Structures are given as structure tokens and as C-alpha cells.
């Protein structure tokens, strides 16, 4: 299990006021950049950074943001050198970093930042920034170095979410509609892009962090569904994501090194909460299902020794994780007798009860089917590809959904999926609970961090009490690099460029 900090968010308000001491001093005197890093993460679906709905892993090397999620999950200044938040939590004043140049050589100004925020607010549909943008009262650039964002009400996750407000030069081709050739400020420029095949990003010589990037270029392989572990072992790739099932073969190869992302993926079983069918609308039946879950065995199966069991959407050690709640988990170990007793108490004869399971086509989803069959239910398991499952979940004609969800820039991005109007709610059974919404809204608006934590935990306690979803555990995603790569470490999220690490810091050659 990764060492995730206890105080995930406590520090970010304190840090914000101070200028960032970027960890580049040692790099400034380092060797000239050399070599092309060949990497494979998730894809690039659009050249328009504001319109992306998928992974940020690729685009983050050519466009940057005001804030950055650091390795320890805290928010740190990036294109903003500092910020101040008004006491009522509504007014954010950012000081734009001096000396930052776009790839066309022009200096970044506060007006550029404002233009990007306006574009996202007015033109972009969906995306994690859509909710905070609806709450924006004013976007101002009173001078070349100051950008002010005024909200209608306090919005706690804003600084974290601004780590995905990409700053692009407004003169980029396609700005009025869809950007075709983005001009960013990142360490690498937008080069040749062949969808689903590759993306070549050459180094930007005038990058604002001295000594970076350390490589001449990055070549992303965007091919889906290929076994990246083989390409890593053959030396075709230097850095790539690799599934847990390939870890044994990767670890056996002395040329490869396994690292882990700092935030976690988490696994859970959700019930249909929007349109539950009998008897799965009976909380005793949901409890019975949860008692069939062998969480330790499940986590060993999906993630080996990297997994950890818990009952919360925050991983153990994180600020929004609660030990007392964890210790009180009634389903930490399975109890088949209790499960059968609960079914009898609820008057359910599983032999005559169908149970429809919807899932992706992952081996771990079979565990749900096996558990329900063991209880005696007539199981119909629909294992679909990602998109098919997405569509089927939205039909709410199922009973149980075993799924997993990946790292996020802020805990709110996990809670919001369980809110009544939250995005993509199917994985969590389409919960509609006004009290849950009220608690999460309260947490979002809370200026005090301890109060925010209390409200998030209260919301989660309610979700557990109602058995909307049963969390099984967490594990960090493995990232593998060849040993000739130096200076690289995975971050908190999938982003491959951040204030304290990523591809800009990676180089090919002997390690110092």
C-alpha cells in the first residue's frame, strides 16, 4: 500500500499564500536534454484541452494549469505563483507566474487565463469544471499578473479542480470552435498526433522551469488494448501503465522497475438505488450480500500485496478516511451464516429469485456472480465492454454492479458521483438521496477543513447505512519504467506533468 499522507488537504490553503520553491535548482545545471522517452498511458481523444472528457495523462505535457496536484495530494501553485482566498471563501485572487512563455514565444498574462476560464464557462459542456463554472460570478484580470475568480458561494474543491483548467493561448488555431493546434506553456509542444496510434511531443526550449524538460521529446503510444508489459520488456517503451495481472512477469525482469501511483483505485459493489427491484430493495438482503463478500480474498485477487481492505471511498491514511469507521466495518470478514439468516428473516428464497449483475469484462467481477450463486440466487451476469456496461447501467434494470474507480484530483470527485444530479452515477446505482446531497453540498461549501471532513464522513456514513454501495478496498495503480529512465516517478493522479515530478523530470541514461 502506498504511503498516502494523513493531512491531504489541510495544507493547501496555507501553502497557497507562499511562492513555490520549485524543485528545479539542482536540475538547472544538469546535462543537456537528450533522447526520446517512449511512454504509454491512457489516450488522447482531442487536440482541444478544454473539451477532453477522458484521461489527462497525455495532454498535460503540452498544457499547464494554475494549480497542480503534488505527489502528496496537496494543491500547489503552478502557473499561478501564489493565491489568496477571501475570508468568506468566495474570492480567489491568483498571481500569475512571471516569465512563463507560450510555445509561440509570447509571455503568459492574466488576460490569457481569464480568456481560458471564460471559454470553459461559456463553450464547454461537461467536464469536472462544469459545476464550479456554473457558480462563477465574475472572472477578472485587473492587471497583467492578477486573475480574480469570484464565486457565488464557497466551493471547497475549486483549487483542486483548477488543476484541470488548461491554459491555452487564445491565438491557437480553432479557438472559436475546436482547437486543432493548441499552443500551451508545457515542457513539450503539441507535435504530431495520429489518433489511437501515437503522439509526438518535442521539448520546448523556452520552458519556464530551468533545466526542464530533460528529454528531447516524448513519444506516446496511444494504442488501446495492447499488452504494454511485452513492449516494456522488449525495450519498445520506457514507461507504461501495467495491469496487476502482469506484475509478476514484470518484477521478474531485472531491466524493469515497478512504481505505484500515489492515489488509489478502489473496488466496490453497488446496488441499484434508482429503481431497485424486490428483494434487493430490502436492506436485510443488501446486508446479506455484503456478508458474502470476502474482502481480504478479493483484494488479494485483484491487486496482490498492493491491496488494502477498507469500507470507505478514501484510502486508509488519507485526510478524509476515518479509522473509527474503518474499525467498525461489519463486513471486514465474510459471514455466510449471517447472510443466510438475514435472507430467511427477509423471507427471501434465493432459489426462486433472479439476480441480474452488470459489470465490465474483468475477472474480479466473477466474484460477485460466485458469491450470489453460493447464496443460491439465479444469477444472470451481463459482462459487457466499457461502453456497453455504461449504457446498461443507465437502464437501471439490474440488481448488483461490481466495479472499480480510479484516482481523482479531489475527494469531491468521488462523492459527486453519488449525488442526485452527479455525473455518470450508474456505477453507484444512481443514488438519489436529498439528505446525502445536503451533506455533500455542506462539505463543499465549508471553509473550515475539519467541518468539511465531518460532513463528508457523515455523508459516507449515510451511504453505508443505506447500503447504497459496499466498498471492498483500495490499491494504487502500478506504473513500470525501464531502469535506464532516471528522475521519473508517478504522481497522485494520472497526470504526467506536475509541479514536483512527471515526464519533464525524466531522462534517459545512467542514474545519478
Amino acid at each position, binding site marked *: 500500500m502506498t504511503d498516502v499522507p494523513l493531512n491531504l488537504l489541510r495544507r493547501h490553503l496555507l501553502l497557497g499564500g507562499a511562492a513555490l520553491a520549485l524543485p528545479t535548482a539542482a536540475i538547472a545545471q544538469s546535462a543537456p536534454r537528450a533522447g526520446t522517452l517512449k511512454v504509454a498511458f491512457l489516450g488522447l*481523444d*482531442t487536440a*482541444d484541452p478544454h473539451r477532453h*472528457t*477522458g*484521461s489527462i495523462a497525455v495532454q498535460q505535457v503540452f498544457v499547464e494549469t494554475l494549480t497542480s496536484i503534488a505527489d502528496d495530494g496537496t494543491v500547489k501553485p503552478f502557473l499561478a505563483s501564489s493565491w489568496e482566498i477571501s475570508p468568506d471563501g468566495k474570492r480567489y485572487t491568483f498571481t500569475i507566474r512571471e516569465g512563463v512563455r507560450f510555445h509561440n514565444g509570447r509571455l503568459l498574462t492574466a488576460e490569457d487565463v481569464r480568456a481560458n476560464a471564460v471559454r470553459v464557462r461559456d463553450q464547454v*459542456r*461537461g*467536464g*469536472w469544471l*462544469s459545476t464550479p463554472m456554473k457558480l462563477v460570478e465574475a472572472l477578472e484580470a485587473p492587471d497583467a499578473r492578477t486573475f480574480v475568480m469570484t464565486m457565488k458561494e464557497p466551493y471547497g474543491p475549486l483549487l483542486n479542480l483548477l488543476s484541470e483548467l488548461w491554459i491555452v493561448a487564445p491565438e491557437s488555431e480553432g479557438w472559436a470552435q*475546436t482547437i486543432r493546434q493548441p499552443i500551451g506553456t508545457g515542457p513539450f509542444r503539441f507535435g504530431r498526433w*495520429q*489518433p*489511437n*496510434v*501515437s503522439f509526438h511531443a518535442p521539448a520546448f526550449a523556452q520552458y519556464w522551469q530551468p533545466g526542464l524538460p530533460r528529454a528531447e521529446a516524448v513519444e506516446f*503510444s496511444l*494504442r*488501446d*488494448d*495492447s499488452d504494454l508489459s*511485452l*513492449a516494456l*520488456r*522488449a*525495450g*519498445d*517503451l520506457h514507461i507504461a501503465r501495467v495491469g496487476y495481472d502482469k506484475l509478476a512477469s514484470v518484477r521478474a525482469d531485472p531491466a524493469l522497475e515497478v512504481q505505484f501511483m500515489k492515489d488509489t483505485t478502489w473496488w466496490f459493489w453497488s446496488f441499484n438505488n434508482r429503481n431497485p427491484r424486490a428483494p434487493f430493495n430490502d436492506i436485510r438482503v443488501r446486508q446479506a450480500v455484503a456478508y458474502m463478500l470476502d474482502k481480504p480474498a478479493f483484494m488479494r485477487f485483484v491487486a496482490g500485496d498492493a491491496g488494502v481492505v477498507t469500507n470507505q471511498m478514501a484510502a486508509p491514511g488519507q485526510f478524509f478516511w476515518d479509522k473509527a469507521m474503518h474499525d467498525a466495518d461489519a463486513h471486514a470478514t465474510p459471514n455466510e451464516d449471517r447472510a443466510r439468516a438475514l435472507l430467511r428473516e427477509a423471507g427471501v428464497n434465493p432459489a426462486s429469485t433472479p439476480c441480474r449483475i452488470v459489470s465490465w469484462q474483468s475477472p474480479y467481477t466473477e466474484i460477485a456472480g460466485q458469491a450470489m450463486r453460493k447464496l443460491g440466487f439465479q444469477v444472470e451476469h451481463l459482462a*459487457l*465492454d*466499457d*461502453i*456497453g*456496461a*455504461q*449504457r*446498461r447501467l*443507465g437502464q437501471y434494470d439490474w440488481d448488483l454492479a461490481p466495479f472499480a*474507480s480510479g484516482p481523482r484530483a479531489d475527494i469531491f*470527485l468521488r462523492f459527486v*458521483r453519488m449525488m442526485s*444530479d*452527479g*455525473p*455518470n452515477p450508474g*456505477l453507484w446505482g444512481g443514488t438519489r438521496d436529498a439528505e446525502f446531497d445536503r451533506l455533500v453540498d455542506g462539505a463543499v461549501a465549508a471553509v473550515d477543513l475539519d467541518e468539511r471532513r465531518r460532513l463528508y464522513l457523515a455523508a459516507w456514513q449515510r451511504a453505508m447505512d443505506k447500503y447504497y454501495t459496499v466498498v471492498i478496498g483500495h490499491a494504487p495503480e502500478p506504473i513500470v519504467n525501464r531502469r535506464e529512465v532516471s528522475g521519473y516517478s508517478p504522481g497522485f493522479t494520472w497526470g504526467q506533468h506536475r509541479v514536483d515530478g512527471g515526464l519533464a523530470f525524466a531522462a534517459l541514461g545512467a542514474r545519478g
Partner: protein
Amino acid sequence: MSLAMRAGLGLARQAMLLAGIAIAVFLLIRIVPGDVVDSMALEGSLDEEAIAQLRADLGLDAGTLTQFGIWAGRVLQGDFGNSLRFDMPVADLILAAVPTTIGLATLALAFGMALGIGLATAAVLWPRSVLPALVEALNLWSIALPTFCLGLGSILLFSVGLGWLPVIEQWLSPVAILGLDIAGQVAKPLHEDLKEAATAAHIRTARAKGLSPARIVLRHLLPNALTTVVALGGLILAGMIGGALTMEVLFGLPGLGTLAFQAVSGRDYPVIQAVVLVFAAGVVLVNWLADLAQRALDPRLRR
């Protein structure tokens, strides 16, 4: 009926076939659950309002017939539309992918045909050597070993094990694997044809006249067997679509097969429809040309 008239009628039949394929693909891909907006929503940053608006923007909320009418109208004007996923012209994506697929198909076909014809011919020339057994073995290889298994084996052996070849974007293994597959399909029937033709009266006469075996095979046997090669070539090219697709995906080659595979995974309807149509047009064209060539080569078919 004249050759030109036959050609015209054949072309009309193939055009109707293409139209049927276009309709079938259009309907079939919509049976698969989910669409490109579901794909965009997978990461979870689209709420229901945004999803509905995106579907409307992309024209996915219209009826199937309406969508087909719009698409067919555009295709008839030579416009395949834009990729729903990448918001770029489908024609650009196809043009970028075509050279890889044509290159792979041409190299594999050339290698396979040369090997298959050469081996079959040599096996007739030296019937008591190991060559006839080699023809049988190659045919068995082609029937029994799926190309994707050989591809995986090749990656494990030559790329990971020996380190001789890269995994991504290397041509040697896919060309060799597809070529051997083609050779196996060609060599056996051609060998049989040549053996049968060798018993014909005019071949006995040629032998009696003292012509060398090589001259008999090259001048009298092979030309007669060409119709078999042409007919097989048409079928093999059609069958290569599947083979090329797996090879392209396995070796990361950015061809039409990879494009089609990714488009199906992402429910990118315009790309799927266009790629299938291009593939179908290619197969139809090749079959039509093979048909014409056979008629031109074999006077019996013109009666």
C-alpha cells in the same frame, strides 16, 4: 454477351452488394449497446444534461432511418463525415491508415504468392524430393495455426526472448506470418492442378519431344494453372482483411484494421461505416477484377 457487357453487369451487381453491406453495417453497429457519448462519459465528468445535449449535437438522438438518410446522402457526395470521437474528417483518418494496410497486404501477398507458386512448381519438378511433403505441411500450417497465435509467439520469441525485433510497428513478423498463411493456401491446390495437368496429352507430347522438365512446367503447365492462382488470389485478398486486422492490432501497425478495431471499441459510427465500406469496396473490386482476369485467361469461361 460481350466482355464489356459482362463487366458492366458484374459491376452493377457489385454496386448493389456494396449498398447492402452499407445498410447491414449501419444497422448492425447500432445493435451493439452504447454509443460514443457513453464512451465520453466513462470518465464520469458528463452529467445527464450534458450527455443528452452531446447526443443531440452529434445527431445521435435522431431515428435510425433519419441518420442513415443523412449518412448515405453524404457518402454519395464523397463525404464520410467527421469522427465522432476525434472530431476530425473520417477521410483523413482513412487516408492516413490506407498506406499501412495496402503495404502490409501487398508485401504479404507478394511473399505468399511467390513462395506458394514456387514451392508448388518445384514440387512438380521434383516429385520424389521432400518438396511435395513440404507443400502438405505448409497447407496444414495455414489451416491449423491461427495468425494471431503465431503473432503472439513471434513477439514472445523474437522480441521479448531474443530481442531481435521490436514489438510495436515492425513489419517483418506480420508479413512473414501472413505470407506463410497465403503460401499454404496457394501451394496445395496449385500443386494438385499442376499434377493433374501433367498427365494431359499435350504434356506427354512435350516430354516425347524431349523438352526439359523446367520448360514443360514454365511454358505449358503454369500458364494453364494461372486461372487457379487468380481465383485463389481474389479469395485470399478478401480473407486477408481478418488476418491484416489481427496483425495490425497485435503489432501496433496504424492501418485500416487498427482503425476499425478502435472505432468499434469507441462506437465511432462514421469511422466504422467508412472503413467497412472501404474494405468492402476493395474486396468487391478485387473479386470483379479476378473474375474479369479469369475470363480473359480462360476461353472456356467466355462461352
